[in-house]
C-alpha cells in the first residue's frame, strides 16, 4: 500500500457562518499524502489546522474543492454512512486523551471495538494485548486517573489503533506532556502507528517532535503555504539553534 494515495485534496474550502458573520477557515487547501507516511500539520493558531483535520477525519463537510480519503469522498456519504466509515477507517488521539474516567484502562481501549458491535470478551482480550505492546501490562484494570500523563496517552494510542484504522489523526498528542514523555509517546506512535497501509496525520505546535514526521505541511490563513521534508527541516532547525548557541 505504501506509495498509494491516502489523501488527495484540491482547493478544499470551508467557511463557518453566513453573511457578515462568515469566517473563512480554509481557502483552498492543496494536499496529497500517501499511506505509510506521517504528515505533520503545523501553523499558528487559527490557521485552519483543526478544521482541516476535522474534514480529513470525516467529522466535518467541506464547502468547496475536492477530497478523496482512501479512495472515497466522505461528503458523498450520508451522515450515517460517514459515521460507519469513520468507525472503521479513522483512529483518534486527542490532546486531552479523553479517556472515560469511570471505566478501566482496558475497557477504554476496547471502546472502538464495542462501538462497532464486537463481543465484549474478545474485544477486551485484544485491548489487553495492545496494552501489553504499549508497555502497560499489569495496568489493564486500573482507572485512567491512576496513570501518569504519559501512560494515559499510551492508553489513548492503544485505543486509536485497536480497530486497525487506515487513517490515524493525532491532535497535539504531546501538548499535555513534558518534553521527555512527549518524545517517548511520539516514538510509540511512530513504532506502533506507522504502517504501510496507514496514514498518520499529526497536528502540532511542538517543533521538538517534527523529526518523527516524514513531511511537514505548513499552514497559514487557511492555506498550505509550503510542504517540506521533515528531515531537511529538522536539520535546518537544528542548525539555526546551534548557530544561536554559538553566537551566545
Amino acid at each position, binding site marked *: 500500500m505504501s506509495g498509494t494515495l491516502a489523501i488527495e485534496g484540491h482547493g478544499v474550502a470551508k467557511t463557518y457562518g453566513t453573511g457578515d458573520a462568515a469566517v473563512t477557515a480554509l481557502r483552498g487547501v492543496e494536499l496529497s499524502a500517501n499511506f505509510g507516511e506521517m504528515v505533520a500539520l503545523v501553523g499558528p493558531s487559527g490557521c485552519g489546522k483543526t478544521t482541516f483535520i*476535522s474534514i480529513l477525519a470525516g*467529522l466535518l463537510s467541506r464547502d468547496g474543492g475536492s477530497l478523496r480519503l482512501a479512495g472515497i469522498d466522505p461528503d458523498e456519504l450520508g451522515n450515517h454512512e460517514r459515521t460507519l466509515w469513520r*468507525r472503521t477507517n479513522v483512529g*483518534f488521539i486527542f*490532546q486531552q486523551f*479523553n479517556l472515560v474516567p469511570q471505566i478501566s484502562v482496558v475497557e477504554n481501549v476496547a471502546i*472502538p471495538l464495542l*462501538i462497532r458491535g464486537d463481543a465484549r470478551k474478545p474485544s477486551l482480550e485484544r485491548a489487553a494485548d495492545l496494552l501489553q505492546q504499549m508497555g502497560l501490562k499489569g495496568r489493564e484494570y486500573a482507572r485512567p486517573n491512576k496513570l501518569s500523563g504519559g501512560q494515559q496517552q499510551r492508553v489513548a494510542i492503544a485505543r486509536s489503533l485497536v480497530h486497525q484504522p487506515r487513517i490515524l489523526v493525532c*491532535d497535539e498528542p504531546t501538548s499535555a506532556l513534558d518534553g521527555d514523555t512527549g518524545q517517548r509517546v511520539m516514538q510509540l506512535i511512530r513504532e506502533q502507528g506507522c504502517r504501510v497501509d496507514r496514514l498518520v496525520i499529526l497536528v502540532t505546535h511542538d517543533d521538538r517532535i517534527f523529526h518523527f514526521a516524514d513531511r511537514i505541511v505548513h499552514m497559514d490563513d487557511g492555506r498550505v503555504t509550503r510542504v517540506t521534508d521533515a528531515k531537511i527541516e529538522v536539520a535546518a532547525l537544528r542548525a539555526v539553534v546551534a548557530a544561536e548557541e554559538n553566537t551566545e
Partner: protein
Amino acid sequence: MRRIALQMLFGDSAKFYGILLGLTFATLLITQQSAIFVGLMTRTYAMIEEIPQADLWVTDPTLQFVDDTKPMQVTALDRVRSVKGVEWASPLFKSILVAKLPNGGRQLCDVIGVDDATLIGAPAVVVEGKVEDLRKPDAIFVETRGARKQLMQPATDDPNGPKRPMQVGDVLELNERRAVVVGIAETRPSFQNVPTIYTTYFRAIGFAPANRRTLSMVLVKAIPEQNIQKLKERIEHETGMTAYTPEEFSWKTLNYWMTQTGIPINFGMAIVLGFLVGVAIAGQMFYNFTLDNLKYFGAMKAMGSTSAQLLVMVALQGLAAGVLGLGLGLGLTSAFGLSIPAERLAFKLTWYLPLISAAAVTIIVVGASLLSMLKVIRLDPKEVFSG
C-alpha cells in the same frame, strides 16, 4: 456499550449518590405524603365500611358527610320501613358526647347507638366480651385504640401512677348516666381520632342530652332481587329523605373533605414539593452528569458511535437511576409505614400510590434525560479537537 453506560453512572459516585438521594427523597416525600393523605381520607368514611350489612343509608337531606349528623324524627324509621322493597330498616344514633372516666377525667367520645333488637351496626370484630352483652343494663363497648390511649386508667390507687387500658368492668358516666364496659372491639380508625363507644339505640338516646329528634340515620337492607337504585329513588320520593348506597355515601363524605377543607391543598403542596426536590436535585444532577461526560460522548461520536447508540446509553443511565431511586424511596416509605402504629398515623399505601410515584420519578428522569439527550444529539464531534 450499555455496560459502559452503567459503569459511567455508578463510577461517578458523588453524582450517582446525589442523583439517587434526590430520587429517593422525592419518592419518599411523594409516596409518604400521598399515603398519609389517602389514610386520612379513608378514615373519613371508616364508619360506613364498618357496617357492611346496609344496602342503603338514609339521612337528612342536608347532611354533608357521615359525621355531620342531622337528627331526624323517629317516625322517619317507620316511613322507611313502609317503603316497598325494604327488607329491614334499623335506626342508628351517632353523636359526640363527653364521658366522665373512672379517674374523674373527661373525654370526648363518639357514641354510636345500634338497633336494640338486631344489634345491626355493632362492631364485627370483638376482642373481649360478646356483642349480645350490649343488651345488659348500662352496657357499652369501647374500641381498642381508645381503650389503650385516651381512656387509659390508673393501674393503682395512685392517680399519677402507671396506667392500664380501659377494660371490661370499668364504669364511666355519659351525661351523668352510668355506663359499664362489657366488651372491647376492634374497629377501623376514624378521622376524628376520638374513642368510639357502642351501645344500643335507646340507651344512647338516654346518654345524649334531651332532644326531640334522635334518629341520626336509618340503615336499610333491600329484599333479595330488589334493584338498589330503584329502591333508593322510592325512599327519597316517599320519605323526602336522602338515601345513599355505601359507595355514594363514602364518596359524598370524601368529597366534602376534599373540597371543603384545606387538607388536599396542604398534602398537595407537600407532594409538589417532593416532586420539585426531585427535579431540583436529581434532575439537575443527572443533567450535570451528562454535561460532565459530554466530552467522552463527543469522543465516542468521533470514533463512530451513532447518536442512537449514545441516546441508548443516556436512557439506560436514566432508567437505572430512576429504578434504584424509586425502589429505595418506596422501601423507605414502606418501612416508615410499618414502623408507626395505625393509631398514631393514618398511613395507607394503596397499590396505585407507587404507580403515581413511579410516574413522578419517570417525569423527572425522562425530563432530565431528554435535556441531556438534546445536548448529546447536538454534540459536534469535531469539538473534541478543541482541547
